[in-house]
Every structure is written in structure tokens, then in C-alpha cells.
């Protein structure tokens, strides 16, 4: 790493950090550079990886790719207002395909598999092993089972949260809150790690004050 590169990186790093003090010209400059560079970065990446790498290189061998190129072309027709409505076709295609794929993927992974995982013998370590679980496992099994059950109750739309149902939904919301709390804790952990990484760059790589 030569001096110029290091100082440039440090200059940009501090520019972003200066936003914490207030919105200022240094930040605005780095922000503008950031927007321009990142937009350009994605143009370049998508051109080489997607257009060139996927289509241009293989267009001879894979005739189906031309359909994609045709859709892409329709997309570009937006630039001509008169026929711009044709760009709805590729959109319709994308939305349709996404819907179909997600419908099955989520049905399988989020519903089937999770239901399968929640159905378990409460007093055993596995099906058919007899009542062999220790106290901690039994508690864990119960908590997972009732937590999932009541959490689901919370999501009912067509029933007022009243009476026994309301109690269920209330307990469900407690579980959701614990989940969010844990997520919050982990997010703190993650963000702090990244900050530490950056400080390591400033004081370690750049200024050489720490090992």
C-alpha cells in the first residue's frame, strides 16, 4: 500500500465519520463520490458479469439466452415513450417467475420444514427413544412448542384478539419480543465488530499505533 492510497482511504473514511458531527461539506463530498462510484461500480459489474459473461460469451451455444436478451431489449424501450409500455412484458415475466419460485421455496422451507421441526415428542430426545429426555430438554421442548404455537396465533388476521385467543396472541407477542431482543443484541454485536474493524484500519494499518 503506497502512501497516497492509504491517505485517500483514510480521507474518505474520516469524511463519512464526520457526518456524526453534522452534515458538512466534507461529508457531502464523500457522499457524492460514494454515489457516483457505487453506481458506476454496479454498471461495470453488471455489464461484465451479467451481460457479457452470461449472454455475450454463451449466446451461440445457448439459444434460450436470446429470449432474455429480447426481454432486456424490451426493457430498454422505456427510453422511447411511445412504446415504453412494452417494458411491462419483462416485468410481468420477472414478477411471475419470482412468484412461482418463491411460492414453492417458501412453502417447502418455511412451512413444511419448520412444522416438521416443531412436531417433536416432548419428553424424549427423539421419536421412538422412549421417555429419555432430561429436565432441561423437556423444558426446551415445551417452550419451543408453545412459543411457535402462540406466535402463530398472533398472526391471525380474521379473528379479534379476545378471550382465550387473545391470551394466546399475547403470549405469542412475548415470544416475538424475546426474538427481537435477541436480534437486537446480535445486531449490536455485529455493528460493534464492524466499527472495531474500521478503527483497526485507522489506528493499525494507517497510523501504525496498534499491532
Amino acid at each position: 500500500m503506497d502512501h497516497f492510497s492509504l491517505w485517500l482511504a483514510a480521507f474518505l473514511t474520516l469524511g463519512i465519520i464526520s457526518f456524526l458531527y453534522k452534515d458538512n461539506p466534507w461529508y457531502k463530498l464523500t457522499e457524492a463520490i460514494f454515489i457516483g462510484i457505487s453506481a458506476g461500480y454496479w454498471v461495470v459489474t453488471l455489464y461484465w458479469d451479467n451481460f457479457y459473461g452470461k449472454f455475450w460469451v454463451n449466446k451461440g451455444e445457448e439459444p434460450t439466452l436470446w429470449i432474455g436478451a429480447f426481454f432486456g431489449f424490451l426493457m430498454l424501450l422505456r427510453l422511447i415513450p411511445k412504446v415504453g409500455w412494452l417494458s411491462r412484458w419483462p416485468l410481468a415475466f420477472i414478477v411471475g417467475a419470482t412468484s412461482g419460485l418463491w411460492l414453492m421455496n417458501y412453502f417447502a422451507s418455511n412451512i413444511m420444514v419448520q412444522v416438521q421441526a416443531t412436531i417433536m415428542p416432548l419428553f424424549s430426545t427423539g421419536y421412538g427413544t422412549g421417555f429419555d429426555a432430561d429436565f432441561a430438554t423437556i423444558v426446551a421442548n415445551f417452550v419451543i412448542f408453545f412459543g411457535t404455537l402462540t406466535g402463530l396465533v398472533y398472526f391471525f388476521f380474521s379473528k379479534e384478539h379476545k378471550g382465550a385467543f387473545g391470551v394466546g396472541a399475547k403470549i405469542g407477542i412475548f415470544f416475538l419480543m424475546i426474538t427481537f431482543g435477541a436480534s437486537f443484541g446480535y445486531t449490536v454485536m455485529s455493528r460493534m465488530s464492524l466499527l472495531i474493524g474500521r478503527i483497526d484500519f485507522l489506528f493499525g494499518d494507517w497510523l501504525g499505533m496498534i499491532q
Partner: protein
Amino acid sequence: MRREVPLFITAIVGISFVIQYFIPHPPFSNLSDWFSDWFSIIQACAIVLGALNLMKISFLKVKDKKPDWGYAAVIIVSFLFITIIGLSEGEGFRLPGTKFDWIYNFIFIPLSATMFSILAFFVASASYRAFRARNFEATLLLIAAFFVMLGRVPIGDLLVWFMPEGYQLSNLASWVMNVPQAAGQRAIMIGIGLGVVSTSLRVILGIERSHIGGGE
């Protein structure tokens, strides 16, 4: 034509993609591969629209000398700078040693990594100002967060040095993550699964059609 054809395309494509889950026989087995290729190509074409849009707005700002127009000029210059270099570099634009790689390492990474890391400050500020034990639910959220935060760093176990092995904060954090947390996540996941199925179905059936230009 303008509305019927897209609806038709959505329905046919959507149904084929549901079917392909069950049928391993060609051509169904190829569908998702094809889609991924086509989507990539469409994405590459669409970014032209996005980039032009950004350039147009920035250019108008400079032309009309709107406030902060200088920064708009910086956007244009830096965009053109990296795009020209990247496109002229050829297929191996990302390999170590290229100019693009230098831009990536010394401009792009510092910017995005720092932007990412200032989140730490916002988290702290949000903790101080927003996370209040307003009611029982919020209190529960905070307590769970406490135990997880303490249990996941060595200092947590130091605080409860008097507890026996196996009952320390790290064990408690593990339990929270593996048991009640997982139960909550699971309820959310199943809910999301149902929501996705229902929304997908509405889209495929053409009941939900705003993506092709609203109601009628």
C-alpha cells in the same frame, strides 16, 4: 393488449415455476436455470435506465445551478471515471492489480465499510434514546437483549464468576438463542411463508396487479 398480455405472461410463467418444483423432466428442470440467466440479462439492461436516470437528475441540478450543484457534478465525474475505467479494463476487471481493483480497494471499500461501521454509533444512540421499557413487551425485549449481549462476550461470564460451570451467562445466552428465540423466529417464518404463498398466488391469479400499472 397493454394489460392483458402482461397478466397472461405473469400467470403462465408463475404456474410453470410452481410446476417445475415437482417435475424433474426437461424442459421443466431447465426453467429455473433459464430464468436466472434471463433475469441477469434483464438486470444488466435495466441498469442502463437507472444510470441514465441518475445522470439526468444530476445533470439538471448542475445545469439549473440548484443548491449543492457542485456535489452533483462530483457524482457525474466519479460515475464516469469508474465506468470508463471498468469498461475499458475488459473481462478480468476485478483481478488484483487492475485499476478497477485499486478503486475498489481504496475508494469503494473505505466508503462502504465506514458507512457500515457508523451503524455502531447509531445503535448506541438508539439505545440511549429509543429503547424504553414502555410496557411489558418492550421490557421483555430489553431483558432478552441484555442477556444475549452480556452472554456473548467474555466479560459476561466474569460478572457472574460465582455461578457454577454450565449456569453462566454464556449458557443462558445460548439457551435464549436456541429456545425462545428460535420459537419466535419459527412463528415469524411460518407466517412469512403463508404471506408469500398468498401474495404469490394473488399475483399469479392477476388479483394483485399494481406492478403492471395499477388497478384498471
